């Protein structure tokens, strides 16, 4: 096996020189790494779908016409920060990757964030929730594309209070992201005149929420906030139905829940659940067209917000590279991405802020009743559009060192 590596290296060198000869004919080589969860709890949000989304972005961008030669690779970070950091390092050092995208799971995203800065490459995160990426840990090399915990808290928390849900009880995953969700949402609730009357922490992962639901039920709070994710949220919603929580007049608010989770629950169980997302496949003609192409390659599955984010991020990144005619200087590319306004069929027009926050509107959705739903993926009805500047944290509140004064 060891004997094979020098050969591979040689082949690699030949390829590189070939690319350089090609480069003389004005071809800029770009390599994009899709680093996602391909086997674990978030593989339906990320996984193969992210690779498909990136491929669709390449189809639409037509790199060859713009003097680019783009290559895609992908890997599984298993939701472990050390695995993610090691892969990122290896991609940047050895495999010549210029840009990493996807990276669901906050802990992994924070680790990759460090590596991208150290190596001066580009990191566009579409899957992680932590707002620290554009806060204390922001770097000139990172853009946070789709959503963050503060935006979800503003969206769901703010809207629920406005609709009369002014007393809250939290069921929180005993993990950093769960606590961040609870903290951010609590701020929003207090600000809009609501009140948090209790919270219970559950181990993560956890399958039985009956005990926490019982406590939430007897607290009499109008809203039960689910500050957890993935299978935990699915279990909590499923069991809330069993205990008649919504029939008893209490509302469930999912603080970090994706369309794939709701699809898994089905409208019968999830009906009435209120949540915030920046993307839904059935928003308009452009999102429907994209989603059709996506589901043809994905066994009929519809794209999640993260998948849409990968598509949109790759598109904007390639525009910036085409503009700069080189992908080597990561910070320069990111600066270019911030200088240009964003425009794509899925998120519409937007901007990238100095702290790395991509700005677009988000939507407050409610899960349809079974009678209203026409198919297994007909899940949401839109309650409200929340403008970008209301839903995302104000520029000066994040504590990002890139923001001056």
């Amino acid at each position, binding site marked *: 096996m060891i004997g094979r*590596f020098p050969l591979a290296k040689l082949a690699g060198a030949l390829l590189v020189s070939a690319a350089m000869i090609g480069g003389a004919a004005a071809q800029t080589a770009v390599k994009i790494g899709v680093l996602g969860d391909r086997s674990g709890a978030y593989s339906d949000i990320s996984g193969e779908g992210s690779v498909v989304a990136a491929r669709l972005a390449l189809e639409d961008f037509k790199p060859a016409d713009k003097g680019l030669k783009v290559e895609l690779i992908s890997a599984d970070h298993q939701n472990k920060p050390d695995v993610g*950091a090691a892969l990122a390092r290896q991609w940047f050092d050895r495999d010549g990757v210029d840009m990493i995208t996807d990276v669901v799971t906050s802990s992994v995203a924070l680790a990759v964030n460090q590596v991208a800065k150290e190596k001066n490459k580009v990191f566009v995160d579409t899957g992680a929730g932590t707002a620290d990426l554009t806060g204390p840990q922001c770097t000139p090399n990172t853009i946070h594309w789709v959503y963050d915990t503060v935006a979800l808290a503003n969206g769901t928390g703010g809207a629920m209070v406005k609709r009369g849900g002014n007393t809250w009880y939290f069921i929180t995953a005993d993990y950093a992201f769960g606590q961040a969700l609870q903290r951010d949402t609590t701020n929003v609730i207090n600000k809009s005149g609501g009140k948090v009357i209790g919270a219970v922490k559950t181990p993560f992962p956890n399958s039985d929420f009956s005990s926490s639901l019982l406590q939430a039920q007897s607290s009499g709070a109008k809203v039960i906030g689910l500050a957890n994710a993935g299978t935990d949220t699915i279990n909590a919603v499923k069991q809330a139905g069993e205990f008649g929580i919504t029939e008893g007049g209490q509302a469930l608010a999912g603080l970090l829940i994706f369309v794939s989770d709701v699809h898994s629950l089905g409208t019968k169980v999830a009906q009435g659940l209120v949540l915030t997302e920046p993307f839904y496949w059935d928003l308009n003609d452009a999102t429907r067209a994209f989603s059709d192409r996506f589901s043809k390659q994905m066994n009929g599955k519809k794209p999640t917000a993260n998948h849409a984010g990968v598509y949109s991020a790759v598109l904007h990144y390639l525009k910036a590279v085409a503009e700069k005619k080189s992908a080597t200087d990561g910070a320069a590319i990111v600066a270019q991405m911030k200088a240009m306004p964003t425009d794509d069929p899925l998120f519409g027009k937007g901007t990238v802020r100095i702290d790395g926050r991509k700005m677009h509107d988000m939507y407050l959705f409610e899960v349809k009743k079974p009678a209203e739903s026409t198919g297994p993926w007909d899940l949401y009805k839109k309650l409200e559009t929340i403008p970008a500047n209301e839903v995302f944290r104000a520029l000066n509140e994040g504590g990002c060192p890139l923001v001056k004064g």
Partner: protein
Amino acid sequence: MADSATLDAAPIAAARPESRDDRALHRKVFIGIAVLLVLAPLVLYPVYLMKVLCFGLFALAFNLLLGYGGLLSFGHAAYFGMASYISAYGAKTLGFTPEVAILAGTVTAAILGLIFGALAIRRQGIYFSMITLALAQMAFFFSLQAKFTGGEDGIQAVPRGDLFGVISLADDRVMYALVAVVFFGGLLLIYRIIHSPFGQVLKAIRDNENRAVSLGYRVNQYKLAVFVLSATLAGLAGATKAIVFQLASLTDVHWSMSGEVVLMTLVGGMGTVFGPIVGALVIVTMETYLAQFGAWVTIIQGCVFVLCVLLFREGIVGLVARLIRKPL
């Protein structure tokens, strides 16, 4: 009952008193390893090599306990992981130089090993394993709850710092040199332990505890000593890994890490001196190069487990040792 059913042949082969011949062979293997350590970074990616070496040392430490002490611990992630936390915390928050940080991590693992070991060695067989597992779960819970560990985000952006305050470890090649030295030192130490009178008594206890007792050995003191040694060296591996990868996280204390080290040792050949290194090499390589296959990784790993247990119970090095009829 079943506790008396024996593990496979490799450890017994290795336990035979060694001839001068074997020693010469082992010397050659050591020289070979040293040469490989020097040459490998010229061809292979140093970060990958450092990962192999850290896990190699971890598996060596684990094998000291299993292969030579006959004690199967399901909780070695506790020592590996806690050491990596302390080392990362020392280097990042307390401003330790890397060697002090690694030392602090290692000492933590030793103390933890002493406490856990003292409890666990009172029981035998599967009950011993279960106590180690349970204690490690508590260490995991502590890591999750304690403030300084940073929850599931772990301790990130740990500076590699300057060795002895002088040599910067930022360059991967310099870091590699340190890791190689730590690894080789650990390997030599373990080899010495195995072939010392202490090691001989251990093997005697492993093969027949009652006889060792009747010969007047204080069996529990020996068991505790090897437990602490194993935990300490596992800690050394974990503390070093934290500096190399500049982060410490829950992965390192999770029970699946305890399972991984069992797998490495088994694949390489338990009870062989060099087997765990090969096992770590195989597993880390699989994880690194299969990462692109996504969901198939667990299936492939599962198949490797099944095949290993059915066909190569003595492990790769155990198999080689049987073929050349010499202990390795």
